[in-house]
């Protein structure tokens, strides 16, 4: 670690940010010194991304102040933030595929001579300079679409360095990188740090944080929980800070003995997406899949629903081996999938609540050639009452409902199919606390009624509360399968970070 200045490169003081219905940041303080890598940890929804968006000028804080090198500053928008030396490198890349690396790095600021001609020599020289700083061995003239994701990420970083950056924020940068590519990235980050920038590194991955950071800060539920020097702490202590809540979070008690095996998967693989996955789900139980983004859980669900063709392994329904040719086939076999993105995959936003709910079975709700209005409405009414869906009327376009109610419509849609196996992918993403609880209770009720349920989640309290058994995944593989009552929060976090049980102390 290099010498630190007296004045921190960045100081956030009492940042408060509210959105309608939720207080995302509750008086957060953060201090980042020049020449240090400062990790920012917290569960999903803890506020890390929101905090950084405030810093980068994408959101305006309701309260609080930002200090850069001791001076109070305002960040009106991302370009303004960049001009002041604060750069945020997103998870999603924002590059133009058809242009070269240099043209992307200097997008909107291409150097030009008379008549609007691009000054190629200056452009390439300056870009190559930045690329050299980042130890990139590709040329500034390469077309971005020809680069791997890792290298595209480098271009994104390079774009950030067209100014003299004082603070660089990395938001989950290793999500799509191989181990070898990560090494290169870390070298780059260390190099930036050594040149005097203050680095904020947002990540879930313990191994990375302990390898890379000098200090770390933890957010939980929108509040600041403390800062530690990395070398002076360990994973368990950090995990404690992240979780913090009382460990006895109303552990569910299963009242029903799990029945026969409804779904069994043996050695299932799909190319590079996931490998050798084996598990089983019984009637009357909830199996939770937990892991980081990109662990492969959703892809397994999509394969079970017929949206992906497996490259190996077998699927057995009720003991019988099946080959699922598509969603229509999956549905007819009794598999229902509540997908990850309700707006893109789960709902037709312009259609009414009722029509969305009856869509998969619309062909069966007919009298003669016509759709039976009464049958449709009765299905809608039934699940509206059962799930407590708040909507002015069934005619309301689904796009006008709140997130929680939208999610309930999707769940209702699939419950109405009376499935044998129900897969729910991120059941409460973007839903407020009240509705969350309702949906969790619903899932537990479904299990006690005999459904075989798979829940995929990225929120630990949810997966712990709702599941009988938990399967932890990392990078397309099942790292650990916890039996009933076996799972603890610490062991779960370690499993999804890639730490296999043998490694644990």
């Amino acid at each position: 670690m290099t010498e630190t200045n007296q004045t921190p490169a960045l100081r956030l003081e009492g940042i408060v940010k509210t959105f309608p219905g939720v207080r995302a940041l509750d008086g957060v303080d953060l201090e980042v010194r020049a020449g240090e890598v400062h990790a920012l940890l917290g569960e999903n929804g803890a506020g890390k991304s929101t905090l950084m968006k405030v810093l980068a000028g994408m959101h305006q804080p309701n309260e609080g102040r930002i200090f850069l090198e001791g001076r109070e500053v305002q960040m009106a928008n991302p370009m303004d933030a960049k001009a002041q030396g604060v750069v945020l490198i997103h998870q999603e890349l924002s590059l133009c595929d058809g242009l070269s690396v240099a043209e992307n790095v200097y997008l909107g600021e291409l150097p030009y001579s008379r008549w609007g001609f691009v000054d190629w020599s200056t452009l390439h020289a300056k870009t190559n300079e930045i690329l050299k700083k980042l130890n990139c061995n590709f040329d500034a003239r390469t077309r971005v679409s020809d680069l791997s994701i890792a290298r595209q990420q480098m271009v994104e970083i390079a774009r950030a360095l067209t100014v003299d950056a004082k603070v660089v924020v990395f938001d989950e940068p290793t999500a799509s990188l191989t181990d070898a590519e990560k090494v290169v990235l870390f070298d780059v980050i260390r190099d930036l740090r050594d040149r005097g920038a203050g680095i904020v590194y947002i990540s879930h991955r313990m191994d990375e944080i302990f390898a890379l950071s000098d200090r770390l800060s933890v957010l939980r539920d929108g509040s600041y929980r403390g800062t530690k020097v990395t070398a002076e702490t360990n994973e368990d202590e950090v995990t404690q800070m992240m979780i913090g809540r009382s460990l006895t979070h109303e552990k569910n008690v299963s009242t029903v003995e799990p029945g026969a095996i409804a779904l069994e998967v043996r050695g299932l693989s799909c190319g590079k997406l996931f490998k050798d996955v084996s598990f089983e789900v019984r009637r009357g139980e909830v199996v939770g899949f937990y892991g980081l983004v990109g662990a492969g859980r959703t892809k397994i669900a999509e394969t079970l629903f017929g949206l992906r063709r497996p490259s190996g392994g077998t699927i057995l329904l009720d003991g019988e081996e099946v080959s699922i040719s598509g969603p229509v086939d999956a549905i007819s076999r009794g598999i229902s999938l509540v997908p990850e993105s309700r707006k893109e995959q789960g709902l037709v936003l312009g259609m009414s609540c009722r029509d969305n709910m009856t869509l998969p079975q619309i062909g069966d709700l007919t009298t003669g050639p016509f759709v039976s209005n009464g049958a449709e409405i009765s299905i809608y009414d039934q699940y509206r009452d059962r799930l407590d869906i708040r909507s002015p009327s069934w005619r309301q376009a689904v796009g006008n409902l709140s997130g929680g109610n939208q999610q309930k419509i999707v769940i209702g849609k699939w419950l109405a199919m009376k499935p044998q196996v129900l897969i729910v992918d991120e059941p409460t993403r973007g839903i407020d606390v009240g509705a969350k609880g309702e949906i969790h209770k619903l899932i537990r009720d479904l299990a006690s009624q005999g459904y075989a349920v798979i829940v995929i989640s990225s929120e630990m309290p949810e997966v712990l509360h709702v599941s009988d058994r938990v399967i932890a995944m990392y990078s397309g593989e099942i790292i650990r399968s916890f039996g009933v009552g076996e799972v603890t929060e610490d062991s779960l976090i370690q499993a999804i970070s890639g730490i296999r049980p043998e490694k644990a102390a």
Partner: protein
Amino acid sequence: MATLKQNKALRWLTENPIWGFCALIFVFFSLSNEFFFDVNNFQNILVQTSTIGLIALGMTLVMINGNIDLSVGAVVALAASLMVDLQSWSAFENWGNWQMLPALIVALAAGTALGALNGIIVWKTGVDAFIVTLGAMLGVRGLVFVYTEEQSFFAMNFTFSDLGMSSIGPMPALAILFLVATVLVHILLSRTVHGRNTYAVGGNREAAVNAGIRVGPHMVVNFMIVGFFAALAGVTLSSQMGASTPNLGREYELWVITAVVLGGTKLAGGAGNIIGTFGGVLAIGILRNGMNLMQVPAFYVLVIMGSILIAVLILDKQLTRKGVEALRT
């Protein structure tokens, strides 16, 4: 190093398949017809395709932006009518050959102005370019009919009509015009800030906006360029015909879009280039010319052209398939 060069050439070919196609049909027609492989014939091809070709240059810019312009055919007719008609105005009676100058200026200005109008409407109202230019396609045609009162105009000035057939040195003037324009637009697209921004605006509009590029005025400029070229095409066409008809240019947009798409520009925007478009224009020209020489009945030509467009689409889809791991939707 020989293999490296081979690889580069092969790569370029797979990325710009239209030129491979051009080479193929070029060889085919050269072998099957004795009149094809002739310098004069090649010049003919260039002249014959120069009308569509000029418009395609501008259309490429607009389509890389993610837009489209369906009104180009109508603009051709308007410019042609203005060009021929203005020369015969009494105001310019004594100007001699200089009569052509004000006519030319007005014709080109009209096309450019209509392009600007399209662009501004797309920018300010947010209505999709398809609908805006669909309306303009009807409306400008209406303007033409109102202006010409359904009449055809005939050029009295023989110098003007001769221009269309004239040559500069060994090459026909129109062929040179087309080639020069191609080079200029290629330079614009590949070497200027505006040209590079065209890819940004079409490829990732949000990134372009965030980077400070003024997307609205940018798109207006590209619409003005295509309007200009449509007008220019109208002028050259009227010179070749020595006349203008109110129904001129009908279905030109079809051929222009075909040429641009054949040349590799994506309908969704963000990709494409002038070399490709030039290849697409040439392909259409070679096909038409070759089939003409082989005396393929004009009716079959249409069927063949339509089928080729569809075949190219299928090929393109196959080449960009994502493989086993894609979602089956």
